[in-house]
């Protein structure tokens, strides 16, 4: 029994018993993050485009890019808040256009001031989104199916109600916003997108509802058994998605000075690629449970920049789509490489 006595020394303190193990600071973690990778790409492409075409960094080009980016960012946010629940919203475009058309109608036919009109439009977005949410929860079907169906229904109903006519008499004050320049380069729309981004970040970090949506997305059963109303959270997420989609739609209305039924293409499908690109480049898991608002923001920005740059280089529009598709693949592969590098070097 001698060796037992020898071994039964007092418990070692686990922290001091071993040589210190590498622990990362917050700054180091940021440098290894997906968001930082996006920033690097943005800088890289800025340099490339600027050296090819001096026009790229002109005030007008920067302004136009910010304005387009704002719309893409909102579209990305709209998809992101549903992706974090582990679902999808194929109706981002349809809801965005429906809400924007309603806003146009309120301004033209009902003669409302643009502020209440926009508010009304956002309410429509929330209601349409919530309808999706309720149907998904009640039916137990995947959001893919439900939003695919409601997308067509909503878009069709909108075409029927508006007779496919545009509303062009929208309040001049509202369309001024879309053309306004702050300090020659900054669009109020980009500012709006930044503010909304910050609000979303705060909401998913500090509010109960935001955190419960993430929990529901990560493991619905465990969330339910922890006292979270999972169905309600999914409905909230879809309602929020509707609101964000309508913000994107209203931005387009403000920019063009008209609410046009085809502003997002047939059934709103022109928005589908940006809707996925932002969140996926931004590193949001398609299986849900994790959010990166900054990533989505940067991802959407990168996509806008590439589109603008390629168009500036007079690359045909259809090639732009091809390049965007390639970008998605490259980004995903890069992320994979980054992750395995981190795992190999024990940094995560």
């Amino acid at each position, binding site marked *: 029994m001698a060796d037992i006595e020898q*071994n039964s020394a007092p*418990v070692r303190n686990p922290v001091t018993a071993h040589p210190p193990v*590498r622990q990362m600071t917050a700054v180091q973690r940021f440098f290894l993050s997906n968001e930082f990778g996006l920033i690097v790409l943005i800088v890289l492409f800025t340099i490339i485009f600027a050296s090819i075409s001096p026009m790229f960094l002109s005030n007008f080009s920067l302004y136009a890019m910010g304005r387009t980016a704002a719309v893409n960012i909102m579209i990305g946010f709209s998809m992101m808040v549903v992706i974090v629940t582990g679902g999808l919203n194929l109706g981002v475009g349809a809801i965005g256009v429906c809400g924007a058309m309603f806003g146009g109608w309120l301004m033209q036919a009902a003669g409302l001031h643009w502020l209440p009109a926009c508010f009304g439009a956002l309410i429509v977005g929330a209601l349409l989104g919530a309808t999706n949410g309720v149907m998904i929860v009640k039916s137990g079907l995947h959001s893919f199916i439900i939003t695919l169906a409601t997308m067509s229904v909503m878009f069709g109903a909108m075409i029927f109600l508006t007779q496919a006519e545009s509303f062009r008499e929208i309040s001049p004050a509202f369309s001024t916003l879309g053309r306004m320049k702050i300090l020659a380069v900054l669009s109020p729309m980009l500012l709006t997108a930044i503010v909304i981004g910050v609000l979303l970040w705060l909401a998913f970090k500090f509010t109960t509802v935001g955190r419960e949506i993430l*929990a529901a997305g990560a*493991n619905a059963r465990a969330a339910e058994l922890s006292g979270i109303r999972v169905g309600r959270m999914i409905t909230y997420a879809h309602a929020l998605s509707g609101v964000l989609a309508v913000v994107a739609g209203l931005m387009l209305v403000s920019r063009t000075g008209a609410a046009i039924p085809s502003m997002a293409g047939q059934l709103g499908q022109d928005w589908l690629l940006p809707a996925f690109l932002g969140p996926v480049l931004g590193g949001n898991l398609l299986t849900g449970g994790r959010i990166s608002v900054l990533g989505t923001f940067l991802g959407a920005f990168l996509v806008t920049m590439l589109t603008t740059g390629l168009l500036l280089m007079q690359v045909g529009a259809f090639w732009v789509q091809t390049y965007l598709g390639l970008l998605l693949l490259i980004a995903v592969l890069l992320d994979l490489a980054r992750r395995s590098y981190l795992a190999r070097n024990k940094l995560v």
Partner: protein
Amino acid sequence: MSQFTFQAHAVTKTFPGVVALDKVNLSLTPGSVHALLGENGAGKSTLIKIMTGVHRHDAGHMEIDGTLFAPQSTREAIAAGVGVVHQERNVIPRFSVAENIFLETLSADPWKPINYPKLYRDAEHWLDLLEIDADPSTKVEDLPVAKIQLVEIAKALALKSRILMLDEPTASLTQHETERLFSIVKRLRDDGVSLVFVSHKLEEVQEICDQVTVLRDGRNACESQPLEGLGRQDIVRLMIGRTEQIPTWSQRDCRDRDVALELRGVATQAGHTDVSLSLHKGEVLGLYGLVGSGRTELAKAIIGADKVTGGEILVEGTPRNITSVADALHQNRIGYVSEDRKSEGLILMHSVLDNAGITVWRRLQNAIGAFTDRSVEKAVSPVVKKLEVRTPSLHQTIGNLSGGNQQKVSVAKWLAANVSILIIDEPTVGVDIKTKAYVHELIRDLADAGTSVLLITSDMPEMVTVADRILVMDEFQIRGEVINDRDYDRVSHEIMQHIHGSSEVAAE
């Protein structure tokens, strides 16, 4: 030729922020059952995962029959004759029992069509051997936790390995199934297989093992020595550095207090037809039964996760219609610690803090529904500290913690929830003896402070230590009541009598 089947020399493994194994040695001899012991987070599962090709070690080397062994994948380990039952569940829920048991052989030749009748017949053999009462074609997801565990064991046995590692195989088994497993283990041992057995139940270790290796903080506290001559307290001292403290709590009787929760003739969709019980304020009411007796199902019905089809549930004397866990928690202040931490108790991809705090967010939020992590930390850290959750930080992903440490958080989140009625289902599955005592203390503290506790556990000593009164459940019915006077032999005997009495009646 070495006398050892397997040897590990100075195996080292680090994870970010954690040294899991620090120059660990292990030698296995043929025809023996080797106990691998240590506190939660000591590194037992990590060692097993390295031996089975799940993780790669950083330094040191391993040998099988004297030749170098460094599996790069689980498949390589299996080919070398190393089989394993992992601590964490490792089955495909949507596949049938038979498909899961023969998963490795099925996937070896992906183009060969599967002969299902034969597959089911072969599976029957293993099911019979382990006395698993389940059809080979049932989906694993439809089985209760304990049966899934048995399927895991069958799966490992079907590989017919020369080295078989069992990482806490008995954690969610009751005595009967454990005995069944042990008779198989003994047979394998006598056939010359080297077995490694991990468990926090020292009685089991002393019953079945002949050699022992203890890990402490990732280092050998003792190395492949005979178990003979080591008493329980010797082993405990190797594990935790001091002897065990066994609480000698006196008898408690709360039956003259107000009733906090009452069931009157409750029937459920799960299969209960007529269950009545009352839980008094500040009482710890035990619910004992064998696996599949309907205890968890009853708990789920009470908290609104399963359907109640008849009878009445009264909370503090008023009939309540609870339709969701949120109702139970927010309207009735009832909480439920799930027996299944992996799929029901925890959100594995989220942090320790998010998991521990999920039940307190709504309590801590301000007027606009916001809260800070700091306030959550303040609310949960007393419990998390008391249970000594071993983690590099509260922001660590909980899926990276050792099994026992995950379990601690799964319990901690409800101990911090400030509920007045708490249903606790198998709270100490996979928890080491030291922390187990802390869990018991915390339950006791809650009860002393007025919380009513319904304790479901298959661990008889735990039941006798903690419960004030014990109800015995069998086949979805309550068969009897035992007043717990902490006399282990008498109480356990009486409990088993209630169970066997009822099955005799059922057999007639």
